[in-house]
């Protein structure tokens, strides 16, 4: 530490310093500093460097609508008074216990990372669902794209004739493509077992006649399209083109679950969610990049333990079969399987043996796609009330998915209202998972 005093400092002044200082002090040269803050020249933006080598090519995104109880599924707290009757069982991942309602998944947990420290502030279904899907809080002035739309938008298709983004059993709350053009929105499928409806030509119309009709439509629209080259007009035109392209796809069989063996179909479970997971696997196999499958019924305000047992049983059967199936086919290396939900359920058991909404702490899963599985990321406190270590915000979770896909997660896209957005808002990927 210097022991020089103010007076000594003044001794050090050279004549030049005195003149410069005097000029600064008395002639207003200091004013120049003020102008330094003004923008002078906005240079060309630097081209974004290519994304890193992706560890995953596809995503199967399983969404547990209604708020999955973390305590009764992937974050049990044996011995805690908040646990209720749910027991914990050991898994193939060292030190990671899950609920007894997930027995088939237990031996496969070596592929899975349980993110136990997810935390959010959105405690109602619609905003929670919206935040989980889009990484942004819901607001009146804009609709943000869901993750699948971002993936389609940022990475393009591999299979040129199938849509890049499919949502199975997703409700009307799905944010879809948000402000992105509608061709990035997920192809909605209600019932997986029914496959893709209305994809064949009606009786009495052969391909040639159909083509003629489409040609006629194009001719009629051409003038209007050219004159009003706007997003809504383009969206309408794209819709036709996409649909026709899909109808002609040689991969249409990807939607047909009857091509799978009866045994395998049963193994996924005889309900929409299980069949949806099977369809997801088939679509991934045909290089559809993002498939979301939803399972509802997790909003267990009453009779939590019985109802979670039922829902967890459905998830257990479907997810365990999906992971094993992907693994046997050599697809788990390149497919990221995600389990997400809008929030957890409260540690406090209410008067109806139920658990209420609890966004403070909840669990999500990531498996395959280059994730080093067999561990838990973060932890909650002993009651399962709040994250005790490594809290993960929803944007961080979504950024991790984008990161695994090698997407430019920081690329800013300007919405039509002129505001900048990115794939996962300000999320930071959990790079330690890979």
């Amino acid at each position: 530490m210097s022991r020089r005093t103010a007076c000594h400092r003044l001794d050090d002044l050279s004549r030049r310093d005195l003149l410069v200082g005097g000029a600064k002090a008395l002639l207003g040269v200091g004013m120049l500093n003020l102008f330094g803050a003004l923008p002078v020249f906005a240079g060309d933006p630097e081209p974004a460097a290519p994304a890193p080598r992706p560890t995953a090519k596809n995503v199967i995104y399983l969404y547990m609508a209604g708020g999955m109880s973390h305590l009764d599924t992937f974050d049990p707290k044996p011995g805690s008074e908040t646990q209720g009757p749910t027991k914990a069982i050991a898994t193939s991942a060292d030190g990671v216990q899950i609920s007894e309602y997930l027995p088939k998944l237990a031996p496969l947990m070596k592929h899975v990372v349980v993110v136990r420290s997810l935390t959010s502030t959105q405690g109602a279904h619609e905003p929670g669902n919206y935040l989980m899907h889009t990484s942004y809080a819901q607001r009146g002035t804009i609709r943000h794209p869901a993750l699948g739309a971002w993936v389609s938008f940022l990475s393009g298709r591999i299979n040129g004739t199938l849509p890049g983004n499919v949502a199975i059993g997703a409700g009307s709350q799905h944010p879809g493509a948000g402000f992105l053009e509608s061709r990035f929105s997920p192809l909605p499928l209600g019932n997986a077992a029914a496959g893709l409806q209305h994809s064949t030509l009606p009786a009495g119309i052969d391909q040639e006649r159909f083509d003629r009709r489409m040609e006629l439509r194009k001719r009629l629209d051409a003038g209007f399209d050219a004159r009003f080259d706007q997003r809504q007009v383009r969206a309408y035109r794209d819709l036709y083109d996409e649909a026709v392209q899909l109808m002609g796809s040689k991969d249409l069989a990807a939607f047909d679950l009857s091509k799978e063996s009866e045994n395998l179909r049963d193994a996924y479970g005889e309900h929409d969610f299980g069949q949806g997971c099977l369809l997801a696997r088939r679509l991934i196999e045909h290089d559809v990049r993002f498939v979301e499958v939803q399972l509802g019924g997790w909003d267990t305000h009453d009779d939590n333990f019985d109802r979670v047992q039922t829902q967890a049983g459905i998830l257990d059967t479907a997810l365990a079969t999906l992971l094993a199936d992907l693994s046997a086919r050599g697809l788990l290396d390149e497919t990221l399987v995600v389990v997400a939900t809008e929030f957890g359920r409260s540690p406090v058991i209410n008067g109806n043996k139920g658990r209420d909404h609890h966004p403070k702490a909840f669990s999500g899963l990531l498996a395959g796609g280059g994730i080093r599985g067999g561990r838990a990321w973060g932890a909650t406190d002993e009651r399962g009330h709040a994250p005790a270590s490594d809290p993960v915000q929803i944007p961080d979770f979504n950024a991790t998915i984008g990161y695994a896909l090698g997407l430019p997660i920081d690329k800013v896209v300007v919405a039509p209202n002129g505001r900048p957005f990115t794939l996962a808002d300000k999320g930071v990927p959990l790079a330690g998972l890979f």
Partner: protein
Amino acid sequence: MPRAVRILALLPLAALAAAAEPSRGLEFLGRFHPVVVHLPIGLLIAVALVEARTWWQGARQPDPARGVLLVAATVGAVVAVGLGLALAQGGEYDPDQLGWHQWLGIAVAVAGGWLIALHHLEWRHHRLRPLFRLALAGSVVLLGVTGHAGGTLTHGPGYLTRYAPTWLGGVPPRPALLAPPAPTAPTEPSPAPAVEPPSMAPEPVGEVTMPSPPANDDPPPLRPVVPPRDPGRATTPPEAMMDEPMAAPAAAGGPDFARDIAPILAARCTECHGDTKQKGGLRLDSPAAIRTGSKKGAVLVPGAPERSSLFTSVALPADDPDIMPARGEPLSAAQIALIKAWISAGALFAAPGNSEAPTQAKPPPTTAKPAASGPPPATAYDQLATGLAKPDSGTIEAITAGGGVVTPLSRNGALLEVNLAHTRAPLTANHLQQLARIGSNIAWLDLAGSTVGDGMLAQLKALPNLRRLHLERTAIGDSGLVHLTGLKALEYLNLVGTKVSDAGLYRLHGLDRLERVYLWQSQVTAAGAKKLQAALPKAQINFGQ
């Protein structure tokens, strides 16, 4: 709170303390500069207001309060200057900016003295009134500039206008970053800039799939814009930097603290973070001090450069207000790469085996789980891509035109994944023949579910760097495996649902780099799979459940 009151009450005594123990006492007094400095500001503005009222009312006599206020303001300014000089002793501030503030502050105090003199003259000679008012106005402007310089000193440049509308000089909002990126442009000429995106215009993955901006759209069209802080780098795994030629020494053997890192620190960092100054409480002139970190905590998280401010603050874009070094050019790309590689490698202060190693190599305790921290482990992909020529863009265009998809796997775009699973026309030998011209660039090849036949696989011998091969759900049989024997680099082979049987499987025995082989739903039996496992003990042979 009571302590603050006590200190204020005893402030005069502190001056004595300063005399007794000069350096400590001065620093103690110096901290009161921000407390005192606003007093003369307010008083001088009060003088201006009082004078403005006199002017407004057209009064003949100046306001009687003017003199008292002026003297109080000047005394306050002198005290503030004194305390400011004491504060400057701490050396925590940028000398350039400090110089401006210091001289301007002194000027304000001097101007106060001149104003007092003018005030007395004007009292007797009213015709001097315009001169007094002019001097007063000038002093107030000077005061504003001084205050701004002081604010800049305390809060950093751009603090005031940071959130101003962008047209006023505000900094546009920035997206979140995995880690702050490297500087936007290397400051030294780099022989082969690897940041250039691959030249594959029609390739539908990445940049090029953005909707083209239409000409006459009412709302602004969707367009990708590059964020202010070049984010692409942010997501780059550490090995990506290694393919820059200048970082080559780091890649070979890893950077050594004494050889590679300490000289950078000594040249560019220790002027402010060293023996004479410790800005932000940080010293970078000894391993122990580096591990101790700054006032804000550790600057080093071994293995995780993106969480180590020692790396992140030098890797910011050159125009970022927080970039280090705060003065002079940013570090060169090679220097940044060295620091990153050094932290990635565990931030060891002495080479393993060195006598210092046992004490020095121990990383500071971090809250992170060791296995869970840090970016993906380095793989061979980017290193493999270093020596490769850029793939021929004409060939890539031809592949893409036929319905194939070509995706870069390495940051310099030289290593590729090619997907021919969805070609427009059924896959033929011609499709595969096309690949030969970019053969050594192809690391992954996906032919899953295609019409590929045994004979067509003969074309694969032109792909010496092939690591992953998808042949699932094809009609490939034992005679096709003959053509795989030369693919010595192969790590992943998917033969699910093919006609391959035990009889042909022995052809894979020589591919000793295989890590994963998928044989479910083929004609291979458990016995055949076992044999392959014996030949390839390292590989995971997946035969289904």
